[in-house]
Structures are given as C-alpha cells and as structure tokens.
C-alpha cells in the first residue's frame, strides 16, 4: 500500500499561519486502519520512562514553557459562559504572561500569545470581536459537543454557522458508537462530511478517547479521522471520565507518524483535559519532540487544550525570572 500515490489525493499549498500543506484526506483504507496493533503494557512502559529520559532546565525550561503557552488553546466550555467572560478570556489570550516577565525573558518585541481561544458556537462572535487584530484564531467546538448525539444535518449546520461567525478552527466530536461498533467507514464518512462543512476552517477531530477504552480503538479512530481529512486529532472533550493521558497520546502520535509516512501530510495533535501543571505540559512537549520531531512543538502542529494550565506555567516562569516561588494571585486571571 502506498497512500502517497492515491489518485484522489490532492495537495494544497500551505495556508497563512500554517507551514505545511493542508491534509486533503485520502480514500478510506481498511488495512491502514486495522493492520497496526497496540500493546498496552509496552505503551505504558514507554510513557512511564519517557519523562525521565529528558530533562529541560533553567533558561531552556523557560523557553519551553513560553512555547507551551504559544500552543495553548485557552478554553472555556461551561454552561455559564457569557460574552463578558469570553472577552476576559480573550484579553488573557493576548497577554498570557505579565509584562515584566516578558521583558525579563527578552521577548518584549514579540510577546507570546496563546495558540487559540476555544469556545462554544454561540460565543464565537464575542471571541472574534475581542481578538480582532491579535492574529489569534477562534476555535469553536461543534457537532453537538460533547456527546455528538445530534442528527448529522444539524451537526453539519452547526459547523457552518460557527465558520460563518468567524471561527477559524472547528473542534468536532466523533460518534463513539461508530468506534465501539467498529464501523470505520461510517466514521470516515461522517468526518469527511464535517471536513467539507468546515470549508477553510481547520478541523480538529476530538476522539473522546476516554470513551473508546482500548488503545487499539484509539489508533483506528485516529487513522480514520486523518484519512477523512482531519487537520488535528485531539484526545478529549474534557468531559469524559479520563481525558488526555500519555499512553493515549503516544498511540495517537504514532498514528500521525504512520499517516505522514504513507501520505506526506503532517497532522497536528491536541491533548485536552487533564494537563494542569507546567510539568505536564513539558512531558507532552517531550513526547512530541521525541516521537514526531521539532516541528510538532509549534502551534500549527501542536495545541494543548487547557484552562488552568497557564496559571502554573506563569508561576514557573516567574520563579525562573526572580528565583522566588510565585503565588497565583500575582498573575492576572483569565
């Protein structure tokens, strides 16, 4: 099998803000989905030792944490979200790090900002307003987030509305039943339809891995989503019992590597839910660098879906700058 020579494959040029040709998707290939196997114990062994195999200290650590900030999809996905709350979040997204710290890091001429702001569809407009001119894209969850159990036409319409309101990225959820029932073509068709509905907006496929249970399912769903044209694959909605874990992430990034090998397309990865500390962020960064390479540390190929992570990163950076341990109340909240 060589998917790279698939006649249906169309290579688009890289888009602004993205350094790689966009994934056009490929025809469904059952062998690529079902062929590879995953061994849980071996995956756990790798992820248990990985954070201990690399250590990033001092100015390197500070730089890595700045990079992590640039990859954060600063998120609010709560029932009590309001436009004002979203404005506040966007303000934080534009200045995630206190000005004196930015200065001390020598980054004043190009202050870091987060990768995107991630909200519900009705909050897209206020977010777009607040972020105008910042260059920060708005990501909208869609397709009946978080469960996805709405009629398909409504889910597709939800995507179109969010895009029309200005969302540059759509975080879709998949129908877990297709995975649990091993109906890969149904999953493929559904995601392909969503990708079509996205138009120019980038599609991030949330696999809700906590619901899929086995790592084999995670691999198969990852590969299917990429074949169907996903620009990113994402672990979780943040609402499952178990969200992003290193073993699940390892399997997903290995699938990204296999897809790259077969098609030449670079797919992004977004762990979401459960990353709360600077140490968590760095563990995932190490995973990306070791398994996929340097390019996957940049926000066009790596995002972290998080709400509380930024606060811990700010404190760690303050500690690097001042040598003193920091308190949360000394950093602006989102």
């Amino acid at each position, binding site marked *: 099998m060589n998917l790279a020579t698939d006649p249906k494959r169309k290579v688009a040029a890289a888009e602004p803000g993205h350094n790689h040709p966009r994934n056009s998707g490929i025809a469904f290939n059952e062998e690529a989905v079902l062929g590879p196997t995953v061994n849980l114990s*071996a995956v756990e062994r790798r992820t248990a030792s990985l954070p201990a195999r690399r*250590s990033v200290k001092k100015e390197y650590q500070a730089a890595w944490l700045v990079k992590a900030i640039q990859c954060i999809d600063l998120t609010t996905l709560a029932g009590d979200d309001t436009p004002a709350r979203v404005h506040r979040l966007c303000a934080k997204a534009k200045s995630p790090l206190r000005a004196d710290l930015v200065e001390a890091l020598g980054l004043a001429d190009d202050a870091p900002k987060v990768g995107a702001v991630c909200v519900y569809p009705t909050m897209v407009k206020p977010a777009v307003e607040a972020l105008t001119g910042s260059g920060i894209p708005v990501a909208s969850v869609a397709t009946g987030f978080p469960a996805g159990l709405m009629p398909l036409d409504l889910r597709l319409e939800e995507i179109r509305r969010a895009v029309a309101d200005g969302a540059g990225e759509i975080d879709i959820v998949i129908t877990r039943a297709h995975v649990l029932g091993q109906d890969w073509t149904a999953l493929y068709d559904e995601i392909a339809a969503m990708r079509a509905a996205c138009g120019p907006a980038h599609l991030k496929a949330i696999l809700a891995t906590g619901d899929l249970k086995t790592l084999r399912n995670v691999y198969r769903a990852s590969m299917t989503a990429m074949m169907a044209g996903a620009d990113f694959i994402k672990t979780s909605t943040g609402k499952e019992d178990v969200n992003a874990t290193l073993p699940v992430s390892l399997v997903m990034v290995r699938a990204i590597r296999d897809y790259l090998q077969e098609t030449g397309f670079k797919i992004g990865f977004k762990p979401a839910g459960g990353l709360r500390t600077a140490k968590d962020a760095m563990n995932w960064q190490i995973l990306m660098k070791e398994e996929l390479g340097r390019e996957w540390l940049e926000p066009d190929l790596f995002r972290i879906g998080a709400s509380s992570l930024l606060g811990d990163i700010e404190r760690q950076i303050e500690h690097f700058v001042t040598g003193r341990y920091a308190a949360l109340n000394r950093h602006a909240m989102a």
Partner: protein
Amino acid sequence: MSTVKEILQTMDYGPAPEAKDAVTAWLAKHQPGFRHYIGGAFQAPRDGKLFDVHNPADGSVIAKVAQGSAADVDAAVAAARAAFPAWSKTSGETRARYLYAIARHVQKRERFLSVLESIDNGKPIRESRDIDVPLVARHFYHHAGWAALLDTEFSGLGPVGVCGQIIPWNFPLLMLAWKVAPALAAGNTVVLKPAEYTPLTALALAEICDEVGLPKGVFNIVTGDGETGAAIVNHADVDKIAFTGSTEVGREIRKATAGTGKKLSLELGGKSPFIVFDDADLDSAVEGVVDAIWFNQGQVCCAGSRLLVQEGVAERFYDKLKRRMETLRVGDPLDKSIDIGAIVAKVQLERITKLVEQGRREGAACFQPSAPMPGKGWFFPPTLFTDVAPASTIAQVEIFGPVLAAMTFRTPDEAAALANNSAYGLSASVWSENIDRCLDLAARIKAGVIWINGTNMFDAAAGFGGYRESGFGREGGREGMIEYLTPLKKNSAKDPAKAKLSAEPTASAFEGKPTLDRTAKLFIGGKQARPDSGYSYSVLDAKDHAIGQAGLGNRKDIRNAVEAASKATGWTALSGHARAQVLYFLAENLSARADEFAARLIAMTGAAKKAARAEVDASVSRIIHYAAWADKYDGRVHYTKARHVTLAMPEAWGTMAVSCPDEAPLLGFISLVIPVIAMGNRVVATPAPLHPLSATDFYQVLETSDVPDGVVNIVTGERDLLAKTLAEHDEIACAWYFGGAEGVALVERGSAGNLKATWCEHGARDWLSTEAQGESFLRHATQIKNIWVPYGE
C-alpha cells in the same frame, strides 16, 4: 549561554547535569587509595599495591584502589570463616533485620550511589537512578523476606559456608546485590570481588554495612583484577563460587573448581534473540529494541543483540528503528537527557570497534545515526547491522556493546530455529499480539528468561539465569535461594573401591550342567546392542566368580547412545500424565519380576535374601513415587510487577547423563534414572560397573512397558571412562555422577566444554532412605525458565 529567544528557535533540550559534589568529596577523601573491607575494617593491601580506576566519560583517573593479593584473599576468607558459625546460627529474623537495614540505607543514599555508579561505570544517570539502585534496594528487601522464611520454606537445607563472589562491571552494585543478598539471607558469609573497572559502589556499600552494624567478617570485599579473582576461586577454604561474567572465564572457573567440592553458579554471556512477528505492535517493539540493546550501552549479558524480524514487516521495522536511532542521545552519563553513556573501558571500546569493522567486512549493512560522538571519553554510537547471515561473526559472538545484528525469518518455526541457533541461552524477547504464538515460542526457545512483548524486565522475585553456555543456577526468587543452600545431611565419606574391569576370561561361579548362557548387551535407541569395542568383562559375584559378562562400552557406544537419546524428543513433549502412566506400567512389570531381580542381586552382591528383596521392593516404590510426581512437579507464578504473570516453569534439560553408584545396583540405578525421565529428559545411564546386570535385566522391563525407544539408554563399562566422555559431550545438557572423588573431578572438568550443569556426589548414600527420593532429585532433573507475560487491554 543561549537566550530564551534563541532557544525558542532551536527548542534544544540544553544541558541537564546531575550534581556530583557529594561524590567528588567522597572520592577526594579517599584520594590516598581505597582499601579492602575485611573483617569489618578497611584494610590496606598487604603488599601495598594500588591500581587506577577511571571515569569512562573522560578517561580521567578518579580513584586508586587496592590490588588484592593472595594474602589479602587469605585474610578475607579467614575473616569470613571466623564469622560463619555465629552468622549461620543467627536467627533468620535477625538476619532479615540486617538485610532490611541495608535496603533502607541504600534508599537513603540512592542519589549518591547512582551518581557514583554513573561516574565509575559510564552508564547514564537515568539508568543508575531509575533502574540499578532501586533494584538493589528491591533485592535486599526481597531477601530480607527469605531470611525470615528460611526455616519453614527450606527445611533440611542450610548455608553452604564461605561464598566467594566475583561480579562484573556492567551492573556493579546491582550484581553485588544479586549475589550478596541471597548469600547473607541463607546464612553464608561472603568474600566479594568487584570488577576492577568498577569497584567503587561496592566499597560504598561496605560503608553502609558498617553503618548498619553488620557483624564483622560477614561481608568482605577484596578489590583487584583477574588474579585476585583466581585467588578466591582457588582458595581451599571457600565453599561456593558465584560468578557473573564472560563464558570464557566461567569455563576457567568450572575447570579450576572441578573436584574441589565447591558449589558453583555461573551467570555468563548471551546472544539473545529479539523476535518481532508481523502482528506485533511495531512501534512498541522498536522501543523494546532500544531497551534491549541500547540499555547500558549494550553491555548487558541478556541484551537482545540478535534482532529477528518477520520478512513481511522487516523493511518497515528497520525504517522505524533507524528513525528512532536518530533520537538517541549519546554523551555525558551525568546528563539527565542522555540515553547512551560511555563504554566502561578503552579495551572494551576497542573490542567493539574491531567487531563492528569485522561485521562491515563480512558484508552486513551498517547503520549509525548522524549525531556526532562526544570529543573525549570512550563512546560508541548505536549501531544496526542488517542483512546479517547467521554464519557471520556479529551474529554469533557476544559483542557486549551497542551493536544490533538483524536478520529476517519467514515462519514461527524458522524464528525458533534461528533463536536457538546459538551456543548461549540466556534470554529471549518475543513480540506478537497473538498470545498463542508468544507462548509457543516461549516454550520452544532454549533460554532461562523469556520476555513477551517486553525486554530486560527484572525483579528480585523472579529467577534469572541461563540455559546452555549462558551458565547455570538462578539469581532471584526461590530458585535463586537454593543456590546458597546445601543439604544438612551429608554423605558418608566412604568412596567406592577402585576396580579395574577386566576383559580377560574368569572362572565361572556355576558348577555342573551349564545354564543357558544369557548375554547382557548395551541398550541403545530401544535396541539391544553389542559393544562397539567387541570386548566384554566378567561380572563377578561376592566370591569373585564370574556370573556373566557385560559389554565394555566405549566412546562410540556413548556417541550412539547420546544420538538415540537426542532423537527421542517425543518423550519430552508428552504430558506429565502420559509419562506417569508409562512409569506405573514400569513399576507393575518390575513388580511382576521381583523374584528374578532379587535373585540377581543375591548372585551379584551376595546380599541376604531379605535385603535383596527389600531393594527390589524399594525400587518398585521409587518408580511409583516418581510416577506420582510426574504430573505434579510444576512451576510457580512469581509475584513480580503489577499486571504481570511471571511463570517459573521447570523444564527438562533434554538429554542427560547419569553415572550410577556401586552401592544398590538396582535401586541406585532406578533412583537416578526414573526422576530424570519422569521430568521428560532422555538419558544415557551407566550402571554400577561391578554389578551391571540388574540394569541390563531392566531393559527387558523397559521394552515391555511402553517406554519409547531412546528414552533410556544403558551403556555398561568403566564408570569414569564413560562419565568423562559423557561430560565432554556437547549434546548432553546435564550430567549426574555418583561415584568416586576422582570421577567427580573428571566430570566437573569435562563439563566445562559446553558448561553443562552437573550434580556430582561421592561417598555412599543410603538409597533405601526416603532422602534418596523426592524434590531435590526433580530439581536437579530440570531447569527453571522464567516467562514474563505482561497483560492489559
């Protein structure tokens, strides 16, 4: 220094050095030279000689260490001997407290020991910190437990005495723990020699022993080189030698200790296969390879150094592997982001370099990642050879470096054949998502440790040790404790009288009308066979009259018998129940001919009728005893790590040799041959030379009892002559010898060729006693294979 802005471009890891101040200070304190640890005191070498110890990461001299002389070894053995009576009588629980204290102190000094180990050996701090030192503590904890349980779990056994332990440089402190913990738990005292390249953590542990108040002389260290080791091996007052190191030196030690009565365990080299099937989790298998051959710079006896990949996925797997090799970081062992540290010594680096050059010359494709090597120190890049033929040097020789030799296979049969195509048999790693296939391979591979979908997994609760020329004896678990224990009851010192078997005619014991002549033949491959020599010797009765003749077996008869035994593999494949049925049938048929067998004993030995009958009855009982055991001597599931089944399975050796004693011509033969075949071995047995006719009569019983051809082969003749040939036969995996002291030496020396396991006794046993049967016989008739099966979905 790079700015944050610059690093944001490169996203390099940057340096992450582990602090070494405490170790530097300790080394400075000992700048004049480290001393031996003898009798609870640090003692200067008696002849004042010191040698240099280097840091492999930069080649610098970091310490001067005492060069142990014969006089130093004498002093250490004397101290250990003096400490033995009190230590061996110390209660198990008290010994447990000392071991527990050592474990705790190792934990309290974990970073110091890790840093010291990495400086001394060159291994990455990640490994010494996360693997070596935690396992050291784990071994002392585990064996503290055995000390406490010794009386109930190992009744009838006691400590061996003074143990001489010689350990290698690849896991200096861990190998110390593997040896010292069980020895002390069992009540032995120890003289340990650390490797000359890496003696420092052992000396640090001596300080810990001091700190916990271990009684003086229980644990002694003499540092030095091979000569110091030889002085320990050859010391007359040492009762046991435990050695981990090269097969070459192991062989020398086997020869040197032959006939000395020293107990011996050897953990030697390997060329272990790492087998990847087409349904394996290939990415995880790639990580497995990293842990198999690039762990500790490949300087691991159980390193997965032969990669066997199924043809259909080979190219894909090599691609993945090469990509992964590009991310391996080689450099300063004390940097926390380093995967591969320094090679322990310059000579080792030269050896690796030479073998890699040879691999290139022999035509294999060589791949090394593009990253440059550090400018100083002894480093070697991770290396992958593909297109390696089984016949090439790098596929056969243990390189003991970060060098992997890869070849492909087509079928599971071929994988097993390639895996077993080695003189070694230490470990194997099998990768497939099909558990049937994994366990099938695990059963077929001749190795002491099999890892399924994993590699280099260790735990104190599981036995570690090899098949074939990887040595014998186990370290860890219950099977490891046995190596430091010996039966409390000893044989009588009386050796059999030496008798020369004569091919000359002898006066007959029979008078009057001649009985119909009965010809005792050899029994080979299920057939009665004339001796190759064409000679027979007269079998004499108690009054030296001939009562018949037996064949004078020679080398060629042994060769034929071993060949027949090697082919009878069907017996080994049978279930225990199936073998039990054959044994019961055997007992039945012997019982039916009890009178005849009793008469033969009386004729041969002049035994009283009652005694002769008792021996026959005991023989029948003994067969029934082992028929009972045949489906019950099963293995264990060791408690190692969570979500792992670690199976410890006793397996038949395969082809065994048994030299039977003179006393109890029938019962001695039965007591040795039956447990051997009950466990599934095939055997070449030489019966009591002076009284062989009970055994030759017995082949008729074998013939009528459904014992398959080749399972029991009987060659009569000179015991020691035949035993020597058997001991030197490379197809024999284990040899038992019950005879004279000289024969023991012959067999033990001869066994050095393929490093077969031996069980040798001289002096007389009471074969009628129940101590002449049971588990110890079954244990010697089997070797333990540990199969690690992690699970999870």
